[in-house]
């Protein structure tokens, strides 16, 4: 698992020039999209075959404020003449769209709004994304912009293998039996629910999840 962050107030133009430099559409994006774009850049820059189209990487974006900073900019433009270039970004999921376009990610893209930064909820959602059989990695980001000048921006790249508990006897991945996994299984053995969190202990085939209170079957 890789993680990066962009401190609030960093010059995004400078970061762009340092790491990219040849993608002029960057300057049309709103702040949230610039942040998502740059987080992704920092995470996958060194990947081999990085611009080969792929369907096996999901892009998930989380925030509390969604597109609020761009909403305000668009609303201000409405006073005179509404700007289409601003309107197009008044959606939280455009962050995932810009990452997908740049990196040719043709898999799932999703955007969620949370009440606050909550690593448990974020990890849950990432796990659930692996239920899509094609998804083998997730590029996730918390991009929270109350304004164009301040933000919280953190990104993660999580591979399916990162979610496999290390203990023996666990299987993971598609279509196996008896393991704890966020994929849905065609058959369920030994009861218990599926969960993608690492398990501290495994009891007789059932699974104990320490992140949520769940009943044992």
């Amino acid at each position: 698992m890789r993680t990066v962050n962009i401190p609030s107030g960093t010059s995004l133009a400078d970061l762009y020039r340092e790491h990219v430099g040849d993608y002029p559409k960057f300057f049309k994006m709103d702040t949230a999209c610039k942040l998502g774009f740059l987080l992704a850049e920092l995470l996958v820059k060194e990947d081999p075959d990085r611009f080969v189209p792929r369907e096996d990487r999901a892009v998930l974006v989380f925030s509390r404020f969604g597109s609020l900073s761009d909403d305000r900019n668009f609303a201000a433009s409405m006073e005179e003449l509404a700007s289409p270039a601003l309107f197009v970004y008044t959606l939280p999921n455009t962050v995932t769209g810009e990452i997908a376009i740049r990196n040719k990610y043709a898999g799932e893209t999703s955007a969620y709004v949370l009440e606050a930064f909550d690593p448990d909820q974020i990890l849950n959602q990432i796990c659930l994304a692996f239920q899509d059989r094609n998804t083998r990695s997730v590029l996730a980001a918390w991009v929270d912009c109350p304004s164009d000048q301040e933000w919280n921006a953190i990104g993660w790249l999580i591979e399916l293998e990162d979610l496999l508990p290390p203990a023996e006897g666990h299987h993971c991945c598609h279509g196996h039996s008896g393991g704890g996994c966020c994929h849905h299984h065609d058959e369920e053995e030994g009861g218990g629910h599926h969960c993608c969190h690492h398990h501290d202990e495994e009891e007789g085939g059932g699974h104990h999840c320490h992140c949520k209170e769940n009943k044992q079957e």
Partner: protein
Amino acid sequence: MISNVNILGCGVCTPLGNTAQEVFRAVREGRSALRLHPDAFGCAEPVFASLFERAPFEGKSLFPEICVRAAVAAIAQAGINVSSDRTALVVCSVKGEIELLGKADVTLAASARKIADALGVTTPPLVVSNACISGLAGLVQGRRLLLSGLYDQVVVVGAEVQSRFIVSGFQSLKALSDEACKPFDIARKGLNLGEAAAAMVLSQDGGKAGGFQILEGAIRNDANHISGPSRTGEGSFNALRYVLPAVDPQELAFISVHGTSTLYNDEMESIALDRAGLLDVPVCALKGSFGHTMGAAGILESVMGMLALQEGIVLPTRGFERLGVSRPVKVSATEVPASGKAFIKLLSGFGGVNGALVFRQS
């Protein structure tokens, strides 16, 4: 089948009616609440849209109110314990309460909290905001929450309320038609906006004979352009390709498409359907009946699909007269008989998102 999820209840709140049956009957009879509003929201140009009368909602914020009404109806039909810690709530919308920008907390999280409190939901609500596929994406998420074992039942509610913000935005994109929209028609020139809320209760338990299930769902990005659809229907095609194995082709009665009545969307969908080998499956597009209800669309249009399948029909595509896309899509202006037990819901949205869901009646 352990990966199927049952739909235990549905509810709607729309300008065309407040029960699913009422709305279904209206659509079947070719009725619509779409009309010209000369000065809605203080916008420069008149807007052709399907909007709620504001007076009955005086003193309430429209968005959470219609969400609650739709969800209450679905919960009542499902007969679940909404306050159980095994019950999740998923709220889906594009702009939520945006008309309160500058006056109140317009984050979708704040709106979802109001809705959860009003319903008596005790678990933290999940909010999906994935452009115009939000409702469909919410159903995909609801299904995953159940399959993961984290919850036993999920209430998924999607809604959209129109405002000067959204109308001005679409006007700036020149995406609106000043007349009733015409999905897939040669004379189509843009979309109509709509308002609605729709809800479903999903569970792996409680399935009945004759009830509906969601068999599969997928979301795929075009990875092409931030607002225009891929000319080759990449994302729609990939979403279809993912879900099609879950359906027996003999059982596929119809496809309820996005059909916004813009030049590009309807053409793109026809290409996606062609690529997926689905051109001989009847298609229905419902935005000529409700307008584009954005966050509600995925759920509202699916509810209509379920009722249609139950009646053994494909609903008429209101506004369609003459085919105007490059592929011979089977759209009909009138109701036709349906044969089969399953249908697909297909949607697209800004940011290059596309989604597909398979519903089947058991």
